[in-house]
């Protein structure tokens, strides 16, 4: 795509669908596990069998309240359910139960770090977040059938649709916001936010404000549907920005001159393509669902959820800095990894009473390995308590760093205790007598080096320390060096 780019500002608002981490569906007792055989997690209710009625999963309400609290939103008691009508084979009832006029939460905000200027914080206003049920899935030409099959396992799964104001100004900002949102949602445990499995899906509304002759014109708004990774969000927005500039330069059409267009992102070709113009879109004929009473949220319930709400990422970071004296950067790195890693850190630090050293072990050793192995902290073979013990041993001088790394490597293979690992690696305490014997033996074999040292060549002792390590791997270089110097001083023929 070519075309000179005028000064312009990108305007982005996002709609994020998040699957709530409930055991059962929103309106029935069927399970929500991913990847089960088609139609095995269904019942008359989520199949939409004539005569069935929805019943509310209170857990979904609780998680929705948690999201409201975490995003600083107003919680709406008496929020209503509405039916959104359209005909599609994966929608057995012919309508989706959602919330239109009175969503369960509204008017919130979320802060995140400016991707171009880490010292600066941006914030995005959240217009609303409402509950709704997911539809089923059409399987085209899969399995034994030649035509299209319908899997209703996902039907009725609770979703929270989070809608931002158009406060984002670049693809990078959109991505940074989404990462922060995901981190928050993971910390409060309301969703696994697994984008591959579809438990977090993003739609982006985007247009450009272009500066022309001292005034600003806006291009028509485009909605890019179903972006399934943050990278795709970023790339689709980048593409769309270039495309809208070019189209505007070609036809000069501005906001209001054409209906809102829905486009999809083709990740292979790296382009967005038209899905439909809104004027052809269905009239959903929303109306209040007569089968569900409004959801009453009491002040007591809010207080209870607030009291149980897990610490938010910001609060974690602050705690790591204040309690364990981590610097902002290290605290940030740990917190960004998610609540499990932060909790892992906390246990290591509690056990070792050495926050700084614990942070170093985790950021330099543990996270590197997790990344290499594509593992989660839950799968990591060394428990936080054991790593804490190891860090404590280093802090107390019981182990030097090199030997501690040997223990760490061994632990990756076998779940041994520290004592067992030391024994297997031959790590034992070295007595003062053993050190003295070692000094005498080495001095005896290295008269030249001693003489060099005496003549002022400090570095002459280095090879002697290495030698001592070879003779006894357990000897600490510091204690050997001290003993050696003392021996030389005593022998000094002054």
């Amino acid at each position, binding site marked *: 795509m070519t075309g000179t780019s005028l000064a312009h500002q990108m305007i982005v608002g996002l709609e994020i669908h998040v699957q709530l981490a409930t055991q059962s569906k929103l309106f029935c007792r069927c399970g929500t596990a991913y990847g089960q055989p088609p139609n095995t997690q269904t019942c008359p209710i989520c199949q*939409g069998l*004539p005569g069935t*009625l*929805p019943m509310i999963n209170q857990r979904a309400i609780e998680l929705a309240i948690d999201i409201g609290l975490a995003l600083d939103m107003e919680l709406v008691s008496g929020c209503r359910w509405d039916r959104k*009508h359209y*005909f599609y084979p994966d929608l*057995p009832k012919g309508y989706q139960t959602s919330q239109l006029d009175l969503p369960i939460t509204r008017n919130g905000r979320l802060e995140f770090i400016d991707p171009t200027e880490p010292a600066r914080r941006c914030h995005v206003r959240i217009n609303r977040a409402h509950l709704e049920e997911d539809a089923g899935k059409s399987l085209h030409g899969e399995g034994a059938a030649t035509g299209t099959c319908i899997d209703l396992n996902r039907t009725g799964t609770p979703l929270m649709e989070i809608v931002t104001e158009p406060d984002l100004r670049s693809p990078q900002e959109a991505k940074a916001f989404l990462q922060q949102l995901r981190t928050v949602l993971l910390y409060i445990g309301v969703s696994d936010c697994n984008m591959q499995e579809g438990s977090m899906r993003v739609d982006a509304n985007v247009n450009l404000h272009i500066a022309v002759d001292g005034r600003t014109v806006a291009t028509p708004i485009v909605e890019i549907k179903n972006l399934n990774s943050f990278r795709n969000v970023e790339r689709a927005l980048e593409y769309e920005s270039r495309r809208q500039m070019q189209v505007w330069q070609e036809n000069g059409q501005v906001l209001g001159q054409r209906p809102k267009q829905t486009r999809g992102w083709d990740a292979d070709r790296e382009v967005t393509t038209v899905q439909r113009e809104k004027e052809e879109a269905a*009239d959903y*004929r929303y109306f209040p669902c007569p089968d569900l009473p409004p959801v009453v949220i009491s002040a007591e319930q809010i207080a209870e959820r607030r009291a149980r709400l897990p610490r938010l990422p910001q609060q974690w970071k602050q705690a790591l800095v204040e309690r364990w004296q981590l610097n902002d950067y290290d605290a940030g790195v740990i917190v960004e990894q998610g609540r499990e890693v932060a909790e892992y850190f906390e246990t290591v630090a509690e056990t070792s009473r050495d926050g700084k050293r614990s942070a170093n072990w985790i950021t330099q050793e543990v996270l590197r390995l997790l990344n290499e192995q594509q593992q989660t902290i839950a799968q990591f073979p060394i428990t936080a308590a054991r790593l804490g013990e190891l860090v404590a041993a280093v802090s107390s001088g019981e182990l030097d760093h090199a030997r501690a790394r040997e223990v760490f490597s061994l632990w990756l293979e076998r779940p041994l205790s520290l004592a067992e690992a030391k024994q297997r690696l031959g790590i034992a305490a070295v007595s003062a007598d053993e050190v003295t014997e070692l000094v005498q033996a080495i001095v005896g074999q290295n008269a030249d080096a001693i003489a060099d040292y005496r003549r002022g060549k400090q570095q002459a002792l280095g090879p002697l320390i290495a030698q001592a390590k070879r003779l006894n791997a357990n000897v600490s270089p510091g204690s050997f060096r001290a003993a050696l110097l003392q021996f030389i001083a005593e022998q000094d023929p002054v």
Partner: protein
Amino acid sequence: MTAAEPSAVEWTRRVRTGEWSARQVTEHYLQRIATLNPRLNAFVEVWAASAMEQAQRVDQKRAAGQQLGPLAGVPIGIKDNLCVAGQVCSAASRMLANFRPTYTATVCQRLERADAVLMGRTNMDEFAMGSGTEYSYYGPTQNPHRAATGSKAAGPGAAGSVANGSATEAGAGATEGYSPGGSSGGSAAAVAAGMVPLTLGSDTGGSIRQPAAFCGVYGLKPTYGRVSRYGLLAFASSLDQVGPLANSPEDLESLFRTIEGADDYDATCLSSAAVRDAEEALGDWRQRPLRVGFVAEHTELSLDPAVRVAWETTRDYLQSQGATVTRVSLPYQAQAIAAYYLVASCEAASNLSRYDGMHFGHRANLPESTSLEQVMAASRGEGFGAEVKRRILLGTFALSQGYADRYYQQALRLRQAIRQDFATAFQSVDVLLGPTTPAPAFAIGAHRQDPVAMYLTDQFTVSANLAGLPAISIPVAASGDLSRGLPVAVQFHAPPCGEPLLFHVARLLHRWNLSHLSAGCAEGNGASIKDSAGGRS
């Protein structure tokens, strides 16, 4: 008319004492159905085999010395819009002619638990939309009090000509017989003719009370939320209630007690605590004379003389029994029909969306290449009858963008005003007395060319649904001349959870019916049925 048949309460007593076995009772009624149904078409399917099995289980329970449920051995007819696992439930529609639900409605589960015997499904207007049981895929049901003479074509598809409004016989009323009312016409006719002692119906705008009035039986529309709707094929969710039809107040109450109560599967059901609170709010009506409200607006309407006389006589009788009667005003009563048809049609359009031939309902037989949209359109076009389509179109239009405010929202405001009217009235009275219908039963086909005239027969019944109140239709013996031999009824409304008040009034009037007007006409009406029934012996 049905005095010859024992009540449900009496049958249970006989089964308990062992005078009759449940199987004998069931056989007796299966025989009655076999004799009467060809003429009346009240049942669209009889579950003879499963009914006999249920009866046998009751007998075995008794033989084993186990406690029997409150409706032990009583045969019951189920309206064709209530699900029983494994049995067809069609809502009298071609759309669902082959639909067998995999689950059982809460009310039917409660009947089974009460040891009742489910006899089969009763005829109705398609998806409960209608006031005459004429719009049925299985053809119309006859009013037992004035059934058509000669054989009639009933059975699947028989309704074609009626539902499509293309009557083949001109001036058909006389030969086609009289309507039992609707939509629960099959249930009302079955009870009136003594084909079963009890039936379940559903009432969205009068669908229990109006046929009960037309057939001369008792019919109750309970307080909204008092009876679970789980397993009732939805017509208009905020208006629908399942309720009982019976030949006596005692039977009516015993069936109501069996089916009512909170249900986890229906979020709109009232909790036991809410029912207790509402019952307490009724006050100490048992300790003082009954306060009856006489609706002023009704007196201004043009009513059939038989209905007017029955209504005024009832008022006078209650007064003679010590009740105080005062005139009360329901100013928004006149708008009830308009509000009702909007709300009901909007909800129906939504509820019936699921019948698209994909998951449920008739699927048009089209070539593979046909588009999804065409398959859905053709399936709905073929599967639904004319009246159902009319209401879907009305509801879809009223909910469309740009119109919803003018129609649906306006209807909701009216609904609120009607609710308020009742609340105000019930500050000074215990029950409201009025007619159930403007006139006795009409001839089948009388409203064929004019659906709005048919809608107007519901003008006194829809407000109870809009306001969520309980209401009962009570047959009162009227002058046979005035009503041309057809039953006449009055209706009472009560405040929320005021069912005990309604049963109380029903018992008072039942005694009056039995003692005073000695059912001279009623027995006369019943004769034709008894003759037919007698034909078997």
